[in-house]
């Protein structure tokens, strides 16, 4: 099977959320999708989006599905409205403030009636819209650095559906609504077949499937397949001003994905221990050096390697060593194929997809 894939270079990610906004405008601007970010960027270490997703279970353990938990609406904390009308045009004395909007009603749940799906999924009853300001959000931890100043650390982690080679969502779906496309390996939820049981959501260890309360279906990143079909890279990649997302096919040996993942082995999957074989890969970040107790520059790395390994697995050591060795080469004025590839002077070359189009 041809597998489309993405490499995200964390040494270039500035956490600007342009990918998030690009995806939102493109695909999730409809009723029931307000809280969804098929693509999000979170500060790590942090709780992420949805909150504490890494603790929600799911994934393969010893060849079996690990039970997962459904995140609660408040864990997403996304759908806000601002009282512009009241403050600016109606003379309200309130301050201008964003507040969570009331959850949209479910189609199978008219007022006063509890949906069987809600009971089945052990979902809480919908809450009254909060009078309080937002308590959590998709980027709540933005720049909340860990460790201790001045040796603190954090970086940005963009996340989208991994379009896994062993997609658990697909296995978990009781209605066989989920499938991988033969031509590009994109994993999709057939909206005609989905019955909204949300087993996929529980099974996905990355919490990258969302339930649309208006249509009653589960939805997720589609890797912008309509764009791929027309030779245009996914919105999150093509619209990324940081130029940090490579798109291409895993088995294209001349393409950037294959070279970074299998050639230089500097691009690694997120949480490989979940066992789903993700097709989104990350170049791990190298942060500036730390200081010793005297304030001199220390050789202790800023991000603990164990932490990076907890995210990206055993390949971290090799990837970091390779990156550092190649950066030293260019500092000496020598050529480096890897650095040239990551610099991507020609931005278009980042997208090795058929008939690639830019205009």
């Amino acid at each position: 099977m041809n597998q489309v894939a993405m490499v995200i270079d964390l040494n270039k990610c500035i956490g600007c959320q342009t990918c998030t906004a690009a995806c939102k405008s493109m695909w999730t601007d409809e009723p029931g999708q307000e809280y969804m970010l098929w693509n999000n960027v979170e500060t790590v270490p942090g709780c992420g989006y949805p909150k504490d997703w890494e603790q929600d279970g799911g994934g393969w353990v010893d060849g079996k599905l690990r039970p997962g938990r459904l995140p609660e609406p408040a864990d997403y904390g996304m759908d806000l409205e601002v009282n512009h009308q009241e403050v600016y045009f109606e003379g309200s004395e309130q301050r201008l403030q964003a507040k969570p909007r009331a959850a949209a009603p479910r189609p199978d749940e008219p007022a006063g009636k509890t949906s069987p799906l809600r009971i089945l999924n052990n979902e809480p009853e919908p809450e009254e819209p909060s009078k309080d300001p937002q308590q959590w959000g998709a980027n709540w931890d933005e720049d909340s650095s860990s460790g201790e100043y001045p040796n603190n650390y954090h970086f940005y982690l963009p996340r989208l559906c991994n379009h896994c080679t062993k997609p658990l969502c697909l296995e978990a779906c009781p209605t066989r609504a989920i499938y991988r496309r033969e031509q590009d390996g994109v994993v999709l939820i057939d909206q005609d077949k989905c019955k909204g049981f949300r087993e996929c959501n529980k099974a996905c260890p990355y919490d990258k499937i969302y339930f649309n309360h208006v249509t009653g279906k589960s939805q997720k990143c589609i890797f912008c397949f309509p764009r791929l079909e027309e030779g245009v890279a996914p919105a999150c990649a093509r619209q990324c001003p940081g130029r940090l997302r490579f798109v291409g096919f895993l088995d294209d040996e001349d393409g950037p994905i294959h070279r970074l993942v299998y050639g230089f082995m500097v691009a690694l999957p997120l949480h490989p221990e979940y066992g789903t074989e993700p097709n989104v890969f990350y170049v791990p970040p190298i942060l500036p050096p730390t200081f010793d107790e005297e304030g001199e520059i220390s050789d202790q790395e800023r991000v603990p390697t164990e932490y990076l390994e907890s995210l990206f697995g055993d390949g971290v050591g090799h990837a970091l060593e390779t990156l550092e060795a190649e950066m030293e080469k260019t500092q000496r004025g020598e050529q480096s194929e890897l650095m040239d590839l990551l610099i991507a002077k020609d931005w278009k070359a980042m997208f090795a997809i058929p008939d690639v189009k830019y205009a």
Partner: protein
Amino acid sequence: MKRSTTVSRRRFLKGSGLAGLGLMLRHSPLSAAEALAEEPEPYRRFEDVYRNKWTWDRVARGTHGTNCAGTCAFNVYIKGGVVWREEQQAEYEPSGDDVPDYGPRGCQKGLRHSNWMYGKQRVLYPMKRAGERGEGKWQRITWEQATDEIADRIIDYSLEYGPDSISFGSGTMMSVKLASFSSLARFANIAGFTVPEFYSGVGDLPTGVYMTIGTAYTGDTMAAIYKSRCVLVWMANPAVTRLPDAHFFWEARYNGTQVISISPEFTPTAMHSSLWVNPKPGTDTALAMGMIHTILEDGTYERDYLCEQTDLPFLVRADTGEFLRETDLSFVATLAVRDNVFYIWDEATGQPRRAPATGLSDKPIGRDRRRFETLELGDLRPALEGTWQVETRGGTVEVTTVFELLKRKAAEHSPERAAEITGVHPKVIRKVARTFAAARPAMIYTGYSACKWIHGDLLQRAMLLLVALTGSTGKEGGGLQIANAPKTRGMMAFAFADVGPAFRMVSSTTWDYEHGRMKELTEKVYGKELAEDWDARYQESIREDYFPSYGDKGWKMGIFAGNNGANWRASGNRWREVGFGKLETIVAMVPDMGCTAHYADYVLPIAHHYERTDMMLQSRVPYVQVLDAAVLPLGESVDDWTAMNRLAEAISRRARERGIGAIRDDVDGRTVRRDFRSYHDLYTMDGSIESARDVVQYLINVTPGVPKMSFEELAAKGIVRVDDSDGTTWDGEHSPYHNEVARSVVGKRPYETLTGRQQYYIDHEWFLEYGEALPTHLEPLAIEGFPIRFVMGHARHGIHSMWRDDPLMLALQRGEPDIYLNPDDAAARGIADGDPVRVFNPAGAFVAMAHVSAGIQPSMVFMYHGWDPMMFEGRENFSAVISTAGLIKPTSMAGDYGHLGHRVLQFAPNQTYRDFTCELEKWDGNGLA
């Protein structure tokens, strides 16, 4: 009909040239796949739902004309008559060989504009205040009523108090859209309004740069960063403030450049740097001086460059500390008042010799010298070090060089001494200095934060000195990168056509100082001694005519065009009370509501970015960019050209109806005849300008460096490369940008400074008195008893106050204004992450949400700027504690000294925002007091 919509990758490749019609054409999702399908995959009807979603009716070229300096080319997709979404056009080329290209540019705000432009904050029709000011009660009125009433007030104030009693501020929403700004400026010029100069008014004017090289504008394309071998990112945070361009830094790092980030807090820029250096806030000049010390000690400076390009070899009298001048030597010179002939000590002849290119007329500054004189030294061999005896008219005098004085000054700033001040280890200081000195070329990338410290001018002077020591200023990939800007010739040609310059551009900071009685504030916060001393210099500057005075001017009416002045001013709450309190009429012309509009008497609805025809030209990307109206303006909003046209028409008509004739107006000693009845004819150039589009065409035709073309051509292309922009530096004669530094370094023309050099020694008596003749470290001001330093910066999720209250942007933050602090400072005050905290000092107080981060240095807090006062408890934002509006540093108002003295958009005191401290506590929920 059943049909396959999918193809294998192999066939995709085979069908190259057939598949896809591209992003610009009307989209037809099925055709390509149909043409190629050979072996049908199972058909999934629902996939078409997604395919059909990615369709549109029409595409227009556009961008967001704010002052973010991004100038990102966008395709704006229109579906069903409204803007559906936008995506980068991304057809950029690289700046020169061997650098990354500019694609794709853009940011999250730009990508959400299609949503924001339909947001509930939009002003849809003209409104007149119906309640008290700031009460938010409005009466909807017609454009005719609005313009008639405003026209009558303009006429009345002009007759009674003079046109200069009306201030006309255009802000960052408009100021960088060329047609908008030109239209507003033309109107203000015809009417003779007072125009506050916003560059220093927002604290962005690099006065230290101006003092040193005679222009405030020095900087190249963003791609120049890639050409540097060592770049100090200092007082700047491009990973947040330059989202479309930040990649150049990390790409340079991959390419072997040392990217060294200098900031007290661990910024997103520091995150990706080769090295992070973390001085205490406001101690940066000590760090710079420690580095200068190291470079001088190591002898790793470029001697020849310094001798030719700088004043370091110039001779200074030991007795007075002043330059040795021709007037010291020759009686004839005193008759001609030639006090700008300077000397070097020539090692070839063992004599003091006149320094080349000094001594010609400096009015207009340096023009003659530039044309005819050269910095080339010829046979001269200037000494950098030594002391000598020189016979003057007054006897024998000991002289030495500026370089010698610099060595003495640097000796006071050893890395060890700098370490005590900055908290940075001396070994780190030496390492940075040596890395920097070894790099060719070496660059300092700085931002406007350097201008927001009261002694930021000294830091800028030290930065320029650092790069000069390595000989990198004026070289590709080197120098100080702070701000370039397109020359304003095109816009001014339009604004002044048929009228001549007839408005009054005033120093915003001194205007506020006088009208806001800001000295009282300084006295209250910083004590009588400082307030009196600095005020005495202020008054002297006015008396000596270095700077004009505005205190005796009546101030009756304020027009705010795309300007949210009540948001960003230092000590904004005081400004709102004292400044706004004075105004009898406030008019806001804005697309979106904000604090200023909320307190206005009239609000006029202005078209948003995708609803107007305009063009952009900003300094870091070599392209001119179009805004080609994608849709009609929402509600009754109109573009700025049209708004001013309606107002001009109303003024002329009302003047005729009321039988009011011309008035005589004195502008800086010139008499200008202002006839209200002719305003409309003047504004439209007798009907030859009929729309914003005509203005754009006019500007294309007259702006140097903009390729000559029709508007249609620009609209079709979206972006067009500017003239003479082959490399990464702005050194071309025909580019639209300032190239003075290259002209001096490459072309050897003198700088527009008193000495004709990069001038590091300023022997103006005030500089000598305050110990600032050379760059030096002075402590930032603090408020006694308030230990927390308050540092701010441009925001990631907004441009100034724009987009700050977009629901998605807020959801991607904490839903409301937050303030970053260190975990230890929080714990010591019983503050937890997410708690509301009250920040206070003698100037005022405000409340924001605590955002605890170990990346924040202890004893400081960090907050992004731009949050509107309307979003805060009691409508008091951070401006409440920014007590600096009355701080006007004496040397920033010096004059009668070559290039020093009031010069619009070049030399004027900044509003500063950093020199204060505060305290914080968990907020108890009961008011601000």
